[in-house]
């Protein structure tokens, strides 16, 4: 039996590896076509990405990306495509920042309160899509995209001087009132830069994701719905309830996505708060096969590529080249997984057939000799 497991692991790694290799090859072709030397570009990225300040940058970026990947992956396991992680985390971070700026409680109270607010806002925003899907049959893809736009509009309306925003002293930038010093999350005192303490929360979220999905009844039910709604229905899962629940959970995790930035870096929500991370999360969840470790590797890779893109610009390359790499990775990952999945299924069917035939032959021989 061990043999099957090893093969499954190999097959599991084969797909993302293939995709990444393919992405670099395609990028090399693009670079050559634009008259640039491809391998020195990759060399620059690797050298720069390995520097210690780059490592810190990558870890911090990956913390955010990891949470986004998890949020999307929860939906994927259910066959739900939550494109709305983007709107969910921005709205969540905005309200959490506004609340955090307005209060001055001791840190051990205020930090959990901020995080909790973010999670609840994220969950509620995602829950709207869940309710719409269950009651009106609205595809979550459509509703979450629209909810993204609405979130943008709400934030734009509220983030104004006199509403929930305030103009800074230089009069150039509107943001929420900065969090008090006590609400800053702890950091690891690494040099030259500090690693955000929120990486611990992200890791815990990953463990919780793994535990809930693969070790609890609830997780089993959730995965069952993801694999076959009809079988889930027959097995006694309330599919509609499960859709709403999993959208809520996806939103809860999405609420966390803005927290590393808010509590470890910006301490306020302004016009420069990072956007679009929800979409990055989709790519990372795909790349990581919805597996907690895979998502972590995907998040780190994404951070690494982004770090490299900054340096490429200095060396006379277009930074967009990294966008090409990322895009091709996602495309090839989707294709490679499907190819590997089908190959794996076929291969296993054949192996089972062969094994049984061998068993049958053996038992026949025994009969004869007996």
């Amino acid at each position: 039996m061990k043999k099957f497991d090893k093969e499954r692991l190999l097959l599991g790694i084969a797909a993302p590896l293939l995709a990444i290799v393919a992405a670099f090859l395609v990028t090399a072709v693009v670079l050559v076509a634009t008259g640039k030397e491809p391998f020195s570009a990759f060399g620059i990225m690797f050298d720069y990405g390995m520097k210690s300040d780059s490592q810190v940058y990558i870890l911090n970026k990956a913390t955010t990306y990891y949470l986004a990947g998890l949020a999307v992956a929860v939906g994927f396991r259910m066959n739900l495509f939550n494109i709305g992680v983007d709107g969910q985390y921005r709205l969540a971070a905005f309200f959490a920042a506004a609340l955090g700026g307005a209060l001055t409680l001791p840190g051990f109270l205020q930090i959990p309160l901020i995080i909790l607010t973010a999670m609840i806002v994220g969950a509620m925003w995602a829950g709207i899509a869940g309710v719409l899907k269950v009651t009106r049959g609205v595809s979550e893809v459509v509703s979450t995209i629209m909810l993204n736009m609405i979130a943008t509009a709400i934030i734009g309306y509220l983030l104004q001087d006199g509403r929930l925003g305030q103009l800074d002293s230089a009069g150039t930038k509107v943001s929420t009132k900065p969090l008090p010093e006590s609400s800053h999350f702890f950091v690891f005192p690494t040099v030259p830069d500090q690693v955000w303490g929120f990486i611990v929360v992200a890791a815990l979220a990953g463990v919780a994701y793994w535990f809930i999905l693969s070790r609890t009844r609830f997780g089993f039910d959730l995965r069952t719905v993801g694999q076959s709604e009809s079988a889930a229905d027959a097995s006694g899962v309330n599919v509609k309830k499960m859709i709403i629940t999993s959208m809520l959970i996806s939103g809860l995790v999405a609420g966390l996505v803005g927290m590393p930035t808010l509590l470890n870096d910006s301490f306020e929500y302004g016009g420069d708060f990072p956007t679009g991370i929800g979409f990055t999360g989709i790519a990372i969840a795909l790349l990581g096969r919805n597996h907690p470790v895979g998502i972590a590797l995907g998040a780190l890779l994404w951070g690494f590529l982004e770090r490299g893109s900054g340096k490429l610009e200095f060396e006379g390359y277009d930074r967009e080249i990294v966008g090409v790499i990322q895009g091709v990775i996602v495309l090839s990952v989707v294709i490679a997984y499907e190819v590997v999945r089908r190959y794996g299924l076929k291969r296993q069917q054949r192996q089972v057939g062969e094994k049984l035939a061998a068993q049958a032959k053996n038992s026949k021989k025994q009969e004869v000799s007996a």
Partner: protein
Amino acid sequence: MANHDIAITVRRGTVHALVGENGAGKSTLMKILYGMQKPDEGTIAVDGQQVTFNSPGDAIARGIGMVHQHFMLADYLTVLENVVLGSEKLHGIGDRARARIKEISEAYGLNVRPDAVVEDLGVADRQRVEILKVLYRGARTLILDEPTAVLVPQEVDALFANLRELKAEGLTVIFISHKLGEVLSVADDITVIRRGTTVGTADPANTTPKQLAELMVGSELPSPETRESTVTDVPMLSVSDLRLSAVDPDGVVRSVLDDIAFTIHKGEVLGIAGVEGNGQAELVEAIMGMRTPDAGALTLDGVDISSVPTRKRREDGIGYIPEDRHKHGLLLESPLWENRILGHVSEKPNSNKGLLDLKAARADTQRIVREYDVRTPGIDVTAASLSGGNQQKLIVGREMSHAPKLLIAAHPTRGVDVGAQAQIWDQIREARREGLAVLLISADLDELIGLSDTLRVMFRGRLVADADPATITPEELGSAMTGAATGHLEAHGAPAETDPRTGGEDR
């Protein structure tokens, strides 16, 4: 799965039957002959000429056509449209094609009307359309995959008449089945396949079904007979006034279950006969709680379960062997041990206070594999990699492992080999002796008659007739299934015309 050392010679102008247990490799062989799969080694010769098929198109070009077990017809198109679909080039799509269809239909006595809409046709008519479709494409050799599985006995006779007609015209028919009586009545030659290889041939003229079955299984023949009665007078499941309507694809609301009432007692097997699609699936789903009926009450072991959710019903002791195991009974891409948990995730040994108990679930999967003879190299392979019969054994093992009070068995031995069939029947009988109540739905009339203590016939959503399994014959049951007879079916006589309402009540 694997075929090895297959040798088969089919003479022109004959009906050649291919029999074997499920998972014996019949389907693989057919796929190879029809170009859907390529053999690793070996050769195929048609009319003495060696050929290689890369796709079904190549096979059709050589005059080999296949009639699948599951019909591949578009319901809302006419027969003509279905036939020409994909072969528009042959005779166009208009009058020329219509004339050709009529010609073929008359030549082989198929009795197909080109302008009927497929939706309005019965199962037997649809099958004839499938056959015509293949002939229209110029096939001289027809492969029929379990063609009788969906037919009632009278329709089977009609099909066999068609096959004889085809044979008389010099066409060749390869007929796959595991209903041995039928095989013996229609085939000129028989080839038996066991565990992927051809184990012998039989001459239908001097072979009995028993001998053929023994050749197939390599051991003695099982029988569904259960004669000593274990029926008690303690009701286990009572269904009363059950009504259900559904919206069909045209948006018309139509009644699919009408005034259904019956009681199954402890130790009783209630068999429901009926042509598929007459409401059996809906009845099962209503009892399982997967559909909400418009009216009616369900009582399980004295407790009203009418508004209890599916999971609670399962926990309360309803075991479920679904009609479509791929759709309702398995997670195909999950390993066997996860499939063992499916449907019973809240019960021991699978979980404990909300947490899965992987170790216990895996150990119990090993036990099921062992006790129910699920042929698999291990419990970590996906359910999809098992043959249909072995998947079914796993499901039966899983459902019986939770000591159900009521077992809903929809086609429990469909696609299962003779050996496993005997085992499943034994399991049901065993549990019945200990007080299990069984709702049995089956298209296999021998199975229904052999296993049931009470028989009901379902027709267009109603229970229209009942019969005593000790005296009824498959032919009599078959005629009630087509709606020709109602009330209490008397053995060996004209069916008594009584009010179906009173006839539908308990005896």
